[in-house]
């Protein structure tokens, strides 16, 4: 069920802010259209006919205050948000959301940065969206990661208390990710395992599609609700699909055309990567239909790399990369059973040879039995008669 949340009370709307910063209406419409493509259904915000309708709804909303915390991460999720194919898209995203604290992007350092965090928390207490990137070390009182002299556990506890909602971006923040792989030396876990009393949205992926984050945040600021979530708290609009079921290479799977090794003829032809360890059949994510960087085919399978299953906790960093996946929903292939199954014939020569062997055996048996009989006669003859 979507949750009712209070929106931020920034006096300026997104529309006013964009006008003030000189962002053209066209660019903003392009972003809204891209969002519409990324979340074609299942999200109330994009459930509209025209991109202009989305633009209108978003423009009227107040800019959401976003505090972005880094824990045990590689900053890849931040990169995915910024590495858009056109630089101005990233800039536009930063115009739409008010990113008040982000360690990688902010100019401030040291005490100034720390002050920025606290002032952002005070100004928008109870209204800001907390985005967490990276897993949280829990082992040995969380000493494996410290921020301004405080363990990550304590920082998360303090910042999340005043947050309206928490978005865990990336597999690390969702369920532990790479740092939680065996032997998990830091006891890394996701936000979900620590915070129990706040609405949490998990956006797993390594990295996830930035439009999933954007859609979730904008849904929250326009309607005050979070998108519908699945059992793993992932937004259904982005994680309801199985990669394999929507894969552009699915036809090759059905026809039995597989790449058997990297660089072989099949791999170069763009055939199915199942035998190279593709985890598509077990992975739920929108990748096969919503590619990255606004460029078609920019996603692992699109460039010939098997799906790694990065969104799924039981797969990523646990199952060996090249181990073949299990197919849970088995469907028929592109081939057909013949009406009559062809059966082999027995050649006349083979029949003759078998007959000769059989005949020889029968003959030998008959001769042997005759000898047995005569031996009995000899014995009985040699014995003295009893009567």
């Amino acid at each position, binding site marked *: 069920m979507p949750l009712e949340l209070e929106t931020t009370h920034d006096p300026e709307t997104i529309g006013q802010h964009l006008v003030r910063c000189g962002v053209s209406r066209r660019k903003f419409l392009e972003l809204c259209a891209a969002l519409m493509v990324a979340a074609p259904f299942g999200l109330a915000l994009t459930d509209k006919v025209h991109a202009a309708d989305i633009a209108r709804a978003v423009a009227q909303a107040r800019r959401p205050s976003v505090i972005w915390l880094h824990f045990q991460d590689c900053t890849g999720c931040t990169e995915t948000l910024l590495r858009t194919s056109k630089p101005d898209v990233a800039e536009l995203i930063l115009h739409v959301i008010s990113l008040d604290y982000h360690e990688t992007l902010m100019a401030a350092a040291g005490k100034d940065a720390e002050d920025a965090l606290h002032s952002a928390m005070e100004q928008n207490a109870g209204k800001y969206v907390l985005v967490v990137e990276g897993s949280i070390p829990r082992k040995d009182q969380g000493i494996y990661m410290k921020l301004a002299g405080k363990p990550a556990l304590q920082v998360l506890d303090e910042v999340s208390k005043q947050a309206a909602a928490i978005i865990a971006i990336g597999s690390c923040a969702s369920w532990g990710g790479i740092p939680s792989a065996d032997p998990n030396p830091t006891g890394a876990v996701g936000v979900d395992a620590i915070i129990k009393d706040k609405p949490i949205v998990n956006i797993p992926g390594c990295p996830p599609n930035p439009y999933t984050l954007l859609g979730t945040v904008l849904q929250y600021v326009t309607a005050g609700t979070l998108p519908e979530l699945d059992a793993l708290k992932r937004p259904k609009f982005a994680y309801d699909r199985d990669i394999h079921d929507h894969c552009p290479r699915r036809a090759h799977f059905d026809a039995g055309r597989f790449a058997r090794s990297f660089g072989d003829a099949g791999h170069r032809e763009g055939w199915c990567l199942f035998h190279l360890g593709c985890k598509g059949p077990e992975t739920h994510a929108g990748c096969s239909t919503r590619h990255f960087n606004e460029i078609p085919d920019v996603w692992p399978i699109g460039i010939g790399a098997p799906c790694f299953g990065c969104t799924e906790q039981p797969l990523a960093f646990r199952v060996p990369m090249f181990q073949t996946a*299990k197919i849970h929903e*088995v469907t*028929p292939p592109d081939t057909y*059973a013949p009406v009559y199954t062809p059966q082999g014939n027995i050649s006349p020569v083979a029949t003759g040879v078998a007959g000769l062997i059989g005949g020889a055996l029968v003959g030998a048996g008959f001769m042997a039995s005759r000898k047995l009989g005569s031996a009995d006669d000899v014995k009985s003859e040699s014995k003295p008669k009893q009567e």
Partner: protein
Amino acid sequence: MGISRRSALKVMAAATATMVGTALSTHETQAAAVVGPAPDAVGMLYDATRCVGCKACMVACNEANDVTPDTSASDGLWDMPLDLSEHAKNIIKLYRDPGTGAQSFVKRQCMHCLDPACVGACMLGALQKNEKGIVSYNPDYCVGCRYCEMGCPFNVIKFEWSRALPKMVKCELCRHRIAKGQGPACCEVCPVGAVIYGKRSDLLADAHQRLAQNPGRYVPNVYGEHEVGGTQVLYLAHVDFEKLGLPAYSDESVPTRVRTIQGTIYKGFVAPVALYGLLAAMVLRNREKPGSAKAKEGQP
């Protein structure tokens, strides 16, 4: 020997009386059984010229009937049955003519015969024709003798070889769905209307209409109208039915032949009485008189 001639004769007489009684009573019920389509017999009409071989019916069938897919031939990759099996109640097969290359799909499942051999073969009534003519299976009565499998002229009913407590597996025309007012899953999912569900009489009329309207398109008869006494699943095709695995059977149902043989042997119970009389006579003739020379020989 403790059996006297008198007691032996008594037992024989009793046995004969019982057999005569049973034979007469079964003969009456057989005579009363009407073999023909029930008034609201339902069925399917499959038109091979319309089928595009998408196999949506196979997927839908598995889903509707809780059948686990057959991945044995494909190493877990595909649902790839090679024939009807415990993992396939419905299958789309392909016929390709070796000479001309002409091809046709064919959908195989239970034909729901008007007078089914499997029902006749089943000794405990686990297989029955229900009020709509659907040949339905009740596993509670099944002992797993597989007589039905031997009896089926279309090689449809299959045994669950992979289970410790096996059952028989066959298409039951989705009778659980029909009870809810739906049609069979395969008919509902077919995107081109190649297989449709309805009353047998309506389907037969429809088939004849198609034949009349497109005389060049089809082999000019409806398979299942008369074969093995008629079936409730009807076929239209542009390739000889025999090539599609539907043999050119006579119009006589399998149980009819069985009934004829049984009826002839036991007619008026003359043949069994004559046989037993002859046997009795032979036994009596060859009986050894006590005290004869032959009886003494061999005794220690």
